[in-house]
Protein backbone atom coordinates (compact mmCIF):
# COMPACT_ATOMS: atom_id res chain seq x y z
CA UNK A 1 0.00 0.00 0.00
CA UNK A 2 1.41 3.33 -1.06
CA UNK A 3 -0.26 5.36 1.70
CA UNK A 4 -0.46 4.95 5.45
CA UNK A 5 -2.64 6.47 8.13
CA UNK A 6 -0.23 9.35 8.85
CA UNK A 7 -0.21 10.39 5.18
CA UNK A 8 -3.97 10.25 4.91
CA UNK A 9 -4.32 12.30 8.09
CA UNK A 10 -2.00 14.88 6.55
CA UNK A 11 -3.99 14.98 3.30
CA UNK A 12 -7.25 15.27 5.26
CA UNK A 13 -5.85 18.15 7.26
CA UNK A 14 -4.74 19.99 4.12
CA UNK A 15 -8.18 19.49 2.58
CA UNK A 16 -9.89 20.49 5.86
CA UNK A 17 -11.68 17.14 5.98
CA UNK A 18 -12.57 15.57 9.31
CA UNK A 19 -12.44 11.77 9.24
CA UNK A 20 -13.70 9.61 12.07
CA UNK A 21 -11.08 7.22 13.39
CA UNK A 22 -12.85 4.16 12.01
CA UNK A 23 -12.92 5.70 8.53
CA UNK A 24 -9.16 5.67 8.19
CA UNK A 25 -8.65 1.97 7.45
CA UNK A 26 -10.91 2.02 4.40
CA UNK A 27 -9.68 5.46 3.30
CA UNK A 28 -6.08 4.31 3.35
CA UNK A 29 -6.97 1.27 1.29
CA UNK A 30 -9.15 3.06 -1.27
CA UNK A 31 -6.84 6.02 -1.78
CA UNK A 32 -3.83 3.69 -2.07
CA UNK A 33 -5.59 1.77 -4.83
CA UNK A 34 -6.10 5.02 -6.77
CA UNK A 35 -2.50 6.11 -6.29
CA UNK A 36 -1.20 2.67 -7.29
CA UNK A 37 -3.39 2.70 -10.39
CA UNK A 38 -2.11 6.11 -11.49
CA UNK A 39 1.42 5.08 -10.57
CA UNK A 40 1.45 2.68 -13.49
CA UNK A 41 1.99 5.74 -15.67
CA UNK A 42 5.49 6.15 -14.29
CA UNK A 43 6.44 2.88 -15.98
CA UNK A 44 6.03 4.50 -19.39
CA UNK A 45 9.13 6.05 -20.94
CA UNK A 46 8.36 9.76 -21.18
CA UNK A 47 11.86 11.08 -21.78
CA UNK A 48 10.84 12.49 -25.19
CA UNK A 49 7.46 13.82 -24.10
CA UNK A 50 6.96 17.45 -23.20
CA UNK A 51 5.07 17.72 -19.89
CA UNK A 52 1.45 18.52 -20.61
CA UNK A 53 0.13 21.69 -19.03
CA UNK A 54 -3.37 21.43 -20.46
CA UNK A 55 -5.36 18.81 -22.37
CA UNK A 56 -6.27 21.33 -25.08
CA UNK A 57 -3.60 21.98 -27.64
CA UNK A 58 -4.14 25.72 -27.65
CA UNK A 59 -2.65 28.89 -26.19
CA UNK A 60 -4.19 31.26 -23.67
CA UNK A 61 -6.28 34.09 -25.09
CA UNK A 62 -5.63 37.51 -23.64
CA UNK A 63 -8.11 40.26 -22.83
CA UNK A 64 -7.53 44.01 -23.10
CA UNK A 65 -6.67 45.80 -19.85
CA UNK A 66 -10.02 47.50 -19.24
CA UNK A 67 -12.50 47.71 -16.38
CA UNK A 68 -15.65 45.88 -17.46
CA UNK A 69 -17.19 45.18 -14.05
CA UNK A 70 -19.71 47.36 -12.26
CA UNK A 71 -20.19 47.62 -8.49
CA UNK A 72 -22.46 44.76 -7.42
CA UNK A 73 -21.40 44.47 -3.82
CA UNK A 74 -24.88 44.37 -2.31
CA UNK A 75 -25.99 41.55 -4.60
CA UNK A 76 -22.85 39.47 -4.02
CA UNK A 77 -23.01 39.95 -0.27
CA UNK A 78 -26.51 38.47 -0.07
CA UNK A 79 -24.75 35.10 -0.19
CA UNK A 80 -22.45 35.89 2.71
CA UNK A 81 -23.04 34.51 6.19
CA UNK A 82 -22.16 37.83 7.79
CA UNK A 83 -21.15 41.27 6.54
CA UNK A 84 -20.47 44.58 8.23
CA UNK A 85 -19.69 47.95 6.66
CA UNK A 86 -19.03 46.26 3.34
CA UNK A 87 -16.63 43.71 4.83
CA UNK A 88 -17.18 39.96 4.77
CA UNK A 89 -17.02 38.73 8.35
CA UNK A 90 -15.23 35.51 9.28
CA UNK A 91 -14.29 33.94 12.63
CA UNK A 92 -11.41 35.90 14.08
CA UNK A 93 -8.11 35.18 12.36
CA UNK A 94 -5.29 35.38 14.88
CA UNK A 95 -1.79 35.99 13.56
Amino acid at each position, binding site marked *: MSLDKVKVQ*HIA*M*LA*RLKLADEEYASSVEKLSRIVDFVDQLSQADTSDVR*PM*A*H*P*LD*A*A*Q*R*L*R*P*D*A*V*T*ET*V*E*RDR*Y*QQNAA*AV*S*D*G*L*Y*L*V*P*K*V*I*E
Partner: protein
Amino acid sequence: MTAADHAGWEVVIGLEVHAQLATTSKIFSGASTAYGAEPNTQACLVDLGYPGVLPVLNREVVQMATLFGLAVNASVARRSVFARKNYFYPDLPKGYQISQLELPIVEHGEMLISDADGNDKRIGITRAHLEEDAGKSIHEGLDDSSGIDLNRAGTPLLEIVSEPDLRSAKEAVAYLRKIHTIVRYLGISDGNMQEGSFRCDANVSVRPRGQQELGTRAEIKNLNSFRFIEKAINYEVERQIDLLQDGGTVVQETRLYDSDKDQTRSMRSKEEANDYRYFPDPDLLPVEISDEYVEAARATLPELPEAKLQRFVAEHGLKKDDAVILTASRALADYFEAVAGAVDATAQVAANWVIGDLSAVLNRDGKDIGDSNISPAALAGLVNRIHDNTISGKIAKQIFEAMWDGEGSADEIIEAKGLKQITDSSAIEAVIDKVIADYPEQVAEYRAGKDKLIGFFVGKVMQETKGQANPGQVNQILKAKL
Protein backbone atom coordinates in the same frame (compact mmCIF):
# COMPACT_ATOMS: atom_id res chain seq x y z
CA MET B 1 27.24 43.03 19.18
CA THR B 2 30.23 44.62 17.47
CA ALA B 3 31.55 44.22 13.96
CA ALA B 4 34.38 42.09 15.37
CA ASP B 5 31.88 39.45 16.47
CA HIS B 6 30.70 39.25 12.86
CA ALA B 7 34.17 38.68 11.50
CA GLY B 8 33.99 34.91 11.39
CA TRP B 9 30.55 34.85 9.77
CA GLU B 10 29.27 35.35 6.27
CA VAL B 11 25.78 36.71 5.73
CA VAL B 12 23.71 35.27 2.87
CA ILE B 13 20.55 37.04 1.71
CA GLY B 14 18.10 36.38 -1.10
CA LEU B 15 15.14 38.69 -1.74
CA GLU B 16 11.65 38.12 -3.06
CA VAL B 17 10.09 41.34 -4.30
CA HIS B 18 6.38 41.64 -5.02
CA ALA B 19 5.82 44.49 -7.45
CA GLN B 20 2.19 45.34 -8.09
CA LEU B 21 1.76 45.85 -11.82
CA ALA B 22 0.26 49.19 -12.85
CA THR B 23 -2.73 47.88 -14.77
CA THR B 24 -6.21 49.39 -14.82
CA SER B 25 -7.96 46.06 -14.27
CA LYS B 26 -7.08 42.85 -12.47
CA ILE B 27 -4.93 40.04 -13.76
CA PHE B 28 -7.82 37.65 -14.45
CA SER B 29 -10.93 39.85 -14.27
CA GLY B 30 -12.33 43.18 -15.43
CA ALA B 31 -12.56 44.62 -11.90
CA SER B 32 -10.73 47.86 -11.17
CA THR B 33 -7.39 47.90 -9.35
CA ALA B 34 -7.67 51.53 -8.15
CA TYR B 35 -6.31 52.01 -4.64
CA GLY B 36 -8.44 53.10 -1.70
CA ALA B 37 -11.96 52.16 -2.86
CA GLU B 38 -14.75 51.22 -0.45
CA PRO B 39 -14.34 47.61 0.75
CA ASN B 40 -15.40 44.95 -1.73
CA THR B 41 -16.62 47.37 -4.38
CA GLN B 42 -13.85 46.14 -6.69
CA ALA B 43 -14.27 42.43 -6.10
CA CYS B 44 -16.22 40.72 -8.89
CA LEU B 45 -17.38 37.10 -9.20
CA VAL B 46 -13.99 35.96 -10.50
CA ASP B 47 -12.15 37.64 -7.62
CA LEU B 48 -14.66 36.22 -5.12
CA GLY B 49 -14.04 32.70 -6.39
CA TYR B 50 -17.64 31.95 -7.36
CA PRO B 51 -18.21 28.59 -8.99
CA GLY B 52 -18.46 28.50 -12.75
CA VAL B 53 -16.39 31.58 -13.51
CA LEU B 54 -13.28 31.54 -15.68
CA PRO B 55 -10.15 33.65 -15.31
CA VAL B 56 -9.01 35.41 -18.52
CA LEU B 57 -5.49 36.76 -18.57
CA ASN B 58 -4.89 40.52 -18.89
CA ARG B 59 -2.82 41.27 -22.01
CA GLU B 60 -0.96 44.09 -20.30
CA VAL B 61 0.60 41.94 -17.56
CA VAL B 62 2.30 39.76 -20.17
CA GLN B 63 3.72 42.88 -21.80
CA MET B 64 4.91 44.25 -18.45
CA ALA B 65 6.60 41.01 -17.40
CA THR B 66 8.28 40.85 -20.82
CA LEU B 67 9.62 44.39 -20.45
CA PHE B 68 10.98 43.57 -17.02
CA GLY B 69 12.67 40.42 -18.31
CA LEU B 70 14.35 42.34 -21.11
CA ALA B 71 15.45 45.13 -18.76
CA VAL B 72 17.26 42.70 -16.43
CA ASN B 73 18.88 40.78 -19.25
CA ALA B 74 16.79 37.68 -18.56
CA SER B 75 15.28 35.10 -20.85
CA VAL B 76 11.60 35.62 -21.53
CA ALA B 77 9.80 32.30 -21.80
CA ARG B 78 7.99 31.79 -25.11
CA ARG B 79 5.71 29.42 -23.20
CA SER B 80 4.80 29.86 -19.55
CA VAL B 81 2.21 28.10 -17.41
CA PHE B 82 -0.03 29.16 -14.54
CA ALA B 83 -0.37 26.85 -11.57
CA ARG B 84 -2.57 26.67 -8.50
CA LYS B 85 -0.93 27.15 -5.14
CA ASN B 86 -3.33 25.59 -2.65
CA TYR B 87 -3.86 26.82 0.89
CA PHE B 88 -6.71 27.95 3.08
CA TYR B 89 -6.94 31.48 4.35
CA PRO B 90 -9.99 33.75 4.62
CA ASP B 91 -8.55 36.37 2.28
CA LEU B 92 -8.15 33.75 -0.48
CA PRO B 93 -11.71 32.85 -1.49
CA LYS B 94 -10.85 30.19 -4.08
CA GLY B 95 -8.66 28.21 -1.69
CA TYR B 96 -5.76 28.63 -4.12
CA GLN B 97 -3.66 31.42 -5.51
CA ILE B 98 -3.00 31.43 -9.24
CA SER B 99 0.76 31.71 -9.65
CA GLN B 100 3.53 30.24 -11.78
CA LEU B 101 5.82 27.48 -10.59
CA GLU B 102 7.72 25.34 -13.08
CA LEU B 103 7.48 27.53 -16.15
CA PRO B 104 7.65 31.18 -15.06
CA ILE B 105 7.58 33.93 -17.67
CA VAL B 106 11.04 35.32 -16.77
CA GLU B 107 14.20 33.41 -15.79
CA HIS B 108 17.95 33.91 -15.44
CA GLY B 109 18.26 37.67 -15.17
CA GLU B 110 20.82 39.84 -13.44
CA MET B 111 21.31 43.21 -11.83
CA LEU B 112 24.51 45.13 -11.13
CA ILE B 113 24.91 46.85 -7.78
CA SER B 114 27.84 48.61 -6.12
CA ASP B 115 29.42 46.62 -3.28
CA ALA B 116 30.98 48.09 -0.13
CA ASP B 117 34.14 49.01 -2.05
CA GLY B 118 32.23 50.73 -4.84
CA ASN B 119 32.91 47.93 -7.32
CA ASP B 120 30.23 46.46 -9.58
CA LYS B 121 28.74 43.27 -8.26
CA ARG B 122 26.41 41.01 -10.21
CA ILE B 123 23.28 39.81 -8.43
CA GLY B 124 21.48 36.95 -10.14
CA ILE B 125 17.72 37.09 -10.66
CA THR B 126 16.50 33.52 -10.52
CA ARG B 127 13.07 34.20 -11.91
CA ALA B 128 10.15 36.59 -12.09
CA HIS B 129 6.66 35.18 -12.29
CA LEU B 130 3.12 36.48 -12.58
CA GLU B 131 0.57 35.87 -9.86
CA GLU B 132 -2.53 37.30 -8.25
CA ASP B 133 -2.58 39.10 -4.91
CA ALA B 134 -4.84 38.00 -2.05
CA GLY B 135 -7.36 40.15 -0.17
CA LYS B 136 -6.86 41.96 3.10
CA SER B 137 -7.91 40.95 6.62
CA ILE B 138 -8.97 43.68 9.02
CA HIS B 139 -8.91 43.02 12.75
CA GLU B 140 -9.26 46.45 14.31
CA GLY B 141 -12.63 47.47 15.67
CA LEU B 142 -14.13 43.99 15.37
CA ASP B 143 -14.60 41.86 18.48
CA ASP B 144 -15.08 38.23 17.60
CA SER B 145 -14.56 38.37 13.88
CA SER B 146 -12.16 39.52 11.22
CA GLY B 147 -13.34 41.58 8.28
CA ILE B 148 -12.30 40.64 4.76
CA ASP B 149 -11.84 43.18 1.97
CA LEU B 150 -11.29 41.48 -1.37
CA ASN B 151 -10.62 44.59 -3.44
CA ARG B 152 -6.95 43.61 -3.63
CA ALA B 153 -7.72 39.97 -4.53
CA GLY B 154 -6.68 39.39 -8.12
CA THR B 155 -4.43 42.43 -8.38
CA PRO B 156 -1.52 41.51 -10.67
CA LEU B 157 1.87 40.98 -9.06
CA LEU B 158 5.27 40.29 -10.52
CA GLU B 159 7.27 38.31 -7.97
CA ILE B 160 10.98 38.86 -8.57
CA VAL B 161 13.24 36.31 -6.89
CA SER B 162 16.97 36.93 -6.48
CA GLU B 163 19.73 34.39 -6.10
CA PRO B 164 21.23 34.25 -2.56
CA ASP B 165 24.01 36.54 -3.83
CA LEU B 166 23.60 39.40 -1.36
CA ARG B 167 26.13 39.56 1.48
CA SER B 168 24.90 42.41 3.70
CA ALA B 169 21.81 44.44 4.54
CA LYS B 170 23.39 47.34 2.61
CA GLU B 171 23.74 45.21 -0.53
CA ALA B 172 20.16 44.04 -0.12
CA VAL B 173 18.93 47.63 0.01
CA ALA B 174 21.12 48.61 -2.97
CA TYR B 175 19.65 45.75 -5.01
CA LEU B 176 16.13 46.61 -3.93
CA ARG B 177 16.56 50.26 -4.86
CA LYS B 178 17.73 49.20 -8.31
CA ILE B 179 14.71 46.96 -8.82
CA HIS B 180 12.49 49.77 -7.55
CA THR B 181 14.06 52.23 -9.99
CA ILE B 182 13.77 49.81 -12.93
CA VAL B 183 10.08 48.99 -12.45
CA ARG B 184 9.28 52.69 -12.26
CA TYR B 185 11.40 53.52 -15.33
CA LEU B 186 9.54 50.82 -17.21
CA GLY B 187 6.24 52.23 -15.94
CA ILE B 188 5.13 48.73 -14.91
CA SER B 189 4.68 49.55 -11.20
CA ASP B 190 4.24 52.76 -9.25
CA GLY B 191 6.53 51.29 -6.57
CA ASN B 192 4.47 52.91 -3.80
CA MET B 193 5.64 51.15 -0.64
CA GLN B 194 3.10 52.79 1.70
CA GLU B 195 0.25 51.47 -0.42
CA GLY B 196 1.87 48.05 -0.63
CA SER B 197 2.63 48.22 -4.36
CA PHE B 198 6.23 47.21 -3.69
CA ARG B 199 6.86 44.68 -0.91
CA CYS B 200 9.76 42.50 -0.03
CA ASP B 201 10.45 39.25 1.81
CA ALA B 202 14.04 38.55 2.83
CA ASN B 203 15.59 35.10 3.21
CA VAL B 204 18.45 35.51 5.66
CA SER B 205 21.04 33.00 6.82
CA VAL B 206 24.59 33.05 8.15
CA ARG B 207 27.45 30.56 7.83
CA PRO B 208 31.01 30.37 9.13
CA ARG B 209 33.27 32.15 6.66
CA GLY B 210 34.67 29.68 4.16
CA GLN B 211 31.84 27.15 4.52
CA GLN B 212 30.24 26.19 1.21
CA GLU B 213 26.98 24.83 2.54
CA LEU B 214 24.29 27.43 3.26
CA GLY B 215 23.08 27.94 6.82
CA THR B 216 19.44 27.44 7.78
CA ARG B 217 17.45 30.48 6.71
CA ALA B 218 14.65 32.47 8.22
CA GLU B 219 12.22 34.33 5.99
CA ILE B 220 11.29 37.87 7.07
CA LYS B 221 7.92 38.79 5.64
CA ASN B 222 6.32 41.90 4.23
CA LEU B 223 8.98 44.54 4.64
CA ASN B 224 7.63 47.79 3.24
CA SER B 225 10.31 50.45 3.59
CA PHE B 226 13.98 50.54 2.64
CA ARG B 227 14.91 51.58 6.18
CA PHE B 228 12.97 48.75 7.81
CA ILE B 229 14.47 46.22 5.42
CA GLU B 230 17.98 47.22 6.41
CA LYS B 231 17.15 47.22 10.12
CA ALA B 232 15.22 43.96 9.99
CA ILE B 233 18.05 42.15 8.20
CA ASN B 234 20.67 43.53 10.59
CA TYR B 235 18.60 42.45 13.57
CA GLU B 236 18.05 38.99 12.12
CA VAL B 237 21.76 38.53 11.30
CA GLU B 238 22.73 39.39 14.87
CA ARG B 239 20.05 37.11 16.27
CA GLN B 240 21.27 34.18 14.21
CA ILE B 241 24.95 34.73 14.98
CA ASP B 242 24.22 35.09 18.71
CA LEU B 243 22.15 31.92 18.60
CA LEU B 244 24.84 29.90 16.81
CA GLN B 245 27.65 31.23 18.97
CA ASP B 246 25.72 30.15 22.06
CA GLY B 247 25.54 26.64 20.63
CA GLY B 248 21.96 26.92 19.41
CA THR B 249 20.47 26.22 15.96
CA VAL B 250 18.48 28.41 13.59
CA VAL B 251 15.01 27.12 12.86
CA GLN B 252 13.64 27.45 9.34
CA GLU B 253 10.61 29.65 9.88
CA THR B 254 8.78 32.78 8.87
CA ARG B 255 9.40 35.86 11.00
CA LEU B 256 7.74 39.24 11.13
CA TYR B 257 9.61 42.49 11.65
CA ASP B 258 8.21 44.73 14.37
CA SER B 259 9.42 48.25 13.57
CA ASP B 260 8.36 49.64 16.98
CA LYS B 261 10.59 47.21 18.84
CA ASP B 262 13.16 46.94 16.02
CA GLN B 263 13.21 43.15 16.18
CA THR B 264 11.91 40.13 14.29
CA ARG B 265 9.64 37.59 15.92
CA SER B 266 8.50 34.16 14.93
CA MET B 267 5.07 33.93 13.30
CA ARG B 268 3.01 31.19 14.86
CA SER B 269 4.52 28.30 12.97
CA LYS B 270 2.14 27.18 10.29
CA GLU B 271 3.17 23.52 10.34
CA GLU B 272 2.75 21.87 6.98
CA ALA B 273 1.91 25.26 5.51
CA ASN B 274 4.52 24.67 2.85
CA ASP B 275 2.62 21.79 1.31
CA TYR B 276 1.02 23.85 -1.44
CA ARG B 277 0.29 20.95 -3.81
CA TYR B 278 0.91 23.02 -6.93
CA PHE B 279 -0.56 21.78 -10.17
CA PRO B 280 -1.17 23.42 -13.56
CA ASP B 281 -4.38 25.46 -13.48
CA PRO B 282 -6.85 23.75 -15.81
CA ASP B 283 -8.75 27.05 -16.19
CA LEU B 284 -5.83 28.66 -17.97
CA LEU B 285 -4.01 27.57 -21.11
CA PRO B 286 -0.26 27.98 -21.49
CA VAL B 287 0.76 31.55 -22.35
CA GLU B 288 2.59 31.57 -25.66
CA ILE B 289 4.44 34.54 -27.07
CA SER B 290 6.44 34.82 -30.27
CA ASP B 291 9.94 36.07 -30.99
CA GLU B 292 8.34 38.96 -32.87
CA TYR B 293 6.33 39.87 -29.78
CA VAL B 294 9.45 39.95 -27.63
CA GLU B 295 11.37 42.01 -30.20
CA ALA B 296 8.49 44.48 -30.49
CA ALA B 297 8.55 44.86 -26.71
CA ARG B 298 12.30 45.39 -26.78
CA ALA B 299 11.81 48.25 -29.23
CA THR B 300 9.58 50.05 -26.71
CA LEU B 301 12.08 49.82 -23.83
CA PRO B 302 12.89 53.27 -22.46
CA GLU B 303 16.48 54.29 -21.76
CA LEU B 304 17.31 52.42 -18.55
CA PRO B 305 18.88 54.01 -15.46
CA GLU B 306 22.36 52.59 -16.02
CA ALA B 307 22.54 53.79 -19.62
CA LYS B 308 21.09 57.17 -18.69
CA LEU B 309 23.69 57.57 -15.94
CA GLN B 310 26.55 56.85 -18.34
CA ARG B 311 25.10 59.27 -20.87
CA PHE B 312 24.67 62.06 -18.28
CA VAL B 313 28.36 61.77 -17.44
CA ALA B 314 29.54 61.51 -21.05
CA GLU B 315 27.13 63.89 -22.77
CA HIS B 316 26.38 66.45 -20.06
CA GLY B 317 29.76 66.24 -18.30
CA LEU B 318 28.11 65.65 -14.91
CA LYS B 319 29.94 64.37 -11.85
CA LYS B 320 29.10 60.68 -11.43
CA ASP B 321 27.58 61.16 -7.96
CA ASP B 322 25.26 63.82 -9.36
CA ALA B 323 24.30 61.59 -12.30
CA VAL B 324 23.43 58.83 -9.82
CA ILE B 325 21.07 61.14 -7.94
CA LEU B 326 19.44 62.53 -11.08
CA THR B 327 18.81 59.12 -12.65
CA ALA B 328 17.20 57.68 -9.51
CA SER B 329 13.84 58.41 -11.08
CA ARG B 330 12.84 58.95 -14.67
CA ALA B 331 10.82 62.04 -13.75
CA LEU B 332 13.79 63.68 -12.07
CA ALA B 333 16.10 62.80 -14.97
CA ASP B 334 13.59 64.21 -17.47
CA TYR B 335 13.24 67.40 -15.42
CA PHE B 336 17.00 67.86 -15.30
CA GLU B 337 17.37 67.32 -19.04
CA ALA B 338 14.64 69.85 -19.74
CA VAL B 339 16.46 72.44 -17.62
CA ALA B 340 19.87 71.53 -19.08
CA GLY B 341 18.50 71.90 -22.61
CA ALA B 342 17.24 75.42 -21.91
CA VAL B 343 20.15 76.99 -20.05
CA ASP B 344 23.06 78.92 -21.53
CA ALA B 345 25.22 77.77 -18.59
CA THR B 346 26.68 74.27 -18.38
CA ALA B 347 24.53 71.24 -17.62
CA GLN B 348 26.40 70.87 -14.33
CA VAL B 349 25.02 74.26 -13.25
CA ALA B 350 21.52 73.03 -14.09
CA ALA B 351 22.24 69.83 -12.14
CA ASN B 352 23.38 71.83 -9.10
CA TRP B 353 20.09 73.72 -9.01
CA VAL B 354 17.97 70.57 -9.40
CA ILE B 355 19.92 68.59 -6.81
CA GLY B 356 20.40 71.54 -4.46
CA ASP B 357 17.73 74.22 -4.09
CA LEU B 358 14.93 72.45 -5.96
CA SER B 359 15.30 69.10 -4.17
CA ALA B 360 15.49 70.95 -0.86
CA VAL B 361 12.14 72.71 -1.30
CA LEU B 362 10.50 69.58 -2.74
CA ASN B 363 11.69 67.72 0.32
CA ARG B 364 10.61 70.49 2.68
CA ASP B 365 7.09 70.59 1.21
CA GLY B 366 6.83 66.82 0.78
CA LYS B 367 6.36 67.06 -2.99
CA ASP B 368 7.42 64.89 -5.90
CA ILE B 369 9.32 66.32 -8.83
CA GLY B 370 6.17 65.93 -10.93
CA ASP B 371 4.36 68.40 -8.65
CA SER B 372 7.13 71.00 -8.64
CA ASN B 373 5.88 74.59 -8.37
CA ILE B 374 8.63 75.62 -10.77
CA SER B 375 8.68 74.24 -14.29
CA PRO B 376 11.98 73.28 -15.95
CA ALA B 377 11.62 76.25 -18.33
CA ALA B 378 11.09 78.63 -15.41
CA LEU B 379 14.12 77.28 -13.56
CA ALA B 380 16.21 77.63 -16.72
CA GLY B 381 15.00 81.24 -16.95
CA LEU B 382 16.42 81.92 -13.51
CA VAL B 383 19.73 80.18 -14.20
CA ASN B 384 20.12 82.22 -17.40
CA ARG B 385 19.78 85.51 -15.51
CA ILE B 386 22.75 84.48 -13.34
CA HIS B 387 24.67 83.41 -16.41
CA ASP B 388 24.17 86.76 -18.17
CA ASN B 389 25.07 88.66 -14.99
CA THR B 390 21.62 90.21 -14.52
CA ILE B 391 21.59 88.87 -10.96
CA SER B 392 24.09 87.41 -8.53
CA GLY B 393 23.90 83.83 -7.24
CA LYS B 394 22.84 85.11 -3.87
CA ILE B 395 19.95 87.17 -5.20
CA ALA B 396 18.99 84.16 -7.34
CA LYS B 397 18.24 82.13 -4.22
CA GLN B 398 15.88 84.87 -3.06
CA ILE B 399 14.16 84.92 -6.47
CA PHE B 400 13.96 81.12 -6.43
CA GLU B 401 11.95 81.24 -3.19
CA ALA B 402 9.63 83.86 -4.68
CA MET B 403 9.13 81.71 -7.80
CA TRP B 404 8.34 78.72 -5.60
CA ASP B 405 5.74 80.85 -3.82
CA GLY B 406 4.08 81.58 -7.15
CA GLU B 407 5.14 85.21 -7.57
CA GLY B 408 5.94 84.77 -11.25
CA SER B 409 8.88 84.12 -13.53
CA ALA B 410 12.46 85.10 -12.70
CA ASP B 411 12.26 88.09 -15.06
CA GLU B 412 8.95 89.27 -13.58
CA ILE B 413 10.29 89.06 -10.03
CA ILE B 414 13.55 90.82 -10.93
CA GLU B 415 11.53 93.60 -12.53
CA ALA B 416 8.90 93.87 -9.78
CA LYS B 417 11.39 93.88 -6.92
CA GLY B 418 14.11 95.85 -8.66
CA LEU B 419 16.67 93.11 -8.10
CA LYS B 420 18.69 93.71 -11.20
CA GLN B 421 22.39 93.49 -10.50
CA ILE B 422 24.26 96.80 -10.56
CA THR B 423 26.97 96.48 -13.21
CA ASP B 424 27.31 100.19 -13.91
CA SER B 425 30.86 100.96 -12.64
CA SER B 426 30.14 104.59 -11.88
CA ALA B 427 27.21 103.60 -9.63
CA ILE B 428 29.40 101.05 -7.87
CA GLU B 429 32.21 103.58 -7.56
CA ALA B 430 29.89 106.06 -5.87
CA VAL B 431 28.94 103.48 -3.23
CA ILE B 432 32.57 102.51 -2.73
CA ASP B 433 33.58 106.14 -2.23
CA LYS B 434 30.89 106.45 0.44
CA VAL B 435 32.07 103.30 2.25
CA ILE B 436 35.69 104.48 2.17
CA ALA B 437 34.63 107.82 3.61
CA ASP B 438 32.52 106.13 6.34
CA TYR B 439 35.28 103.83 7.63
CA PRO B 440 38.56 105.78 7.71
CA GLU B 441 40.02 103.58 10.49
CA GLN B 442 39.58 100.38 8.54
CA VAL B 443 40.98 102.05 5.44
CA ALA B 444 44.12 102.99 7.36
CA GLU B 445 44.49 99.45 8.75
CA TYR B 446 44.04 97.96 5.29
CA ARG B 447 46.63 100.24 3.84
CA ALA B 448 48.95 99.29 6.70
CA GLY B 449 48.85 95.73 5.38
CA LYS B 450 45.77 94.09 6.92
CA ASP B 451 44.65 92.59 3.59
CA LYS B 452 41.86 90.54 5.13
CA LEU B 453 39.83 93.70 5.61
CA ILE B 454 38.93 93.59 1.89
CA GLY B 455 36.10 91.26 2.90
CA PHE B 456 34.80 93.87 5.31
CA PHE B 457 34.61 96.50 2.55
CA VAL B 458 32.97 94.11 0.07
CA GLY B 459 30.41 93.29 2.73
CA LYS B 460 29.65 96.96 3.36
CA VAL B 461 29.27 97.70 -0.35
CA MET B 462 26.93 94.71 -0.81
CA GLN B 463 24.94 95.88 2.22
CA GLU B 464 24.60 99.38 0.73
CA THR B 465 23.42 97.94 -2.61
CA LYS B 466 21.16 95.31 -1.00
CA GLY B 467 23.35 92.61 -2.54
CA GLN B 468 22.74 93.83 -6.06
CA ALA B 469 26.24 95.00 -6.95
CA ASN B 470 28.23 92.63 -9.15
CA PRO B 471 30.69 91.07 -6.65
CA GLY B 472 33.50 90.75 -9.20
CA GLN B 473 33.33 94.40 -10.11
CA VAL B 474 33.12 95.48 -6.47
CA ASN B 475 36.31 93.58 -5.68
CA GLN B 476 38.16 94.99 -8.61
CA ILE B 477 37.18 98.62 -8.06
CA LEU B 478 37.73 98.42 -4.29
CA LYS B 479 41.26 97.15 -4.73
CA ALA B 480 42.03 99.92 -7.18
CA LYS B 481 40.65 102.62 -4.90
CA LEU B 482 42.26 101.47 -1.68
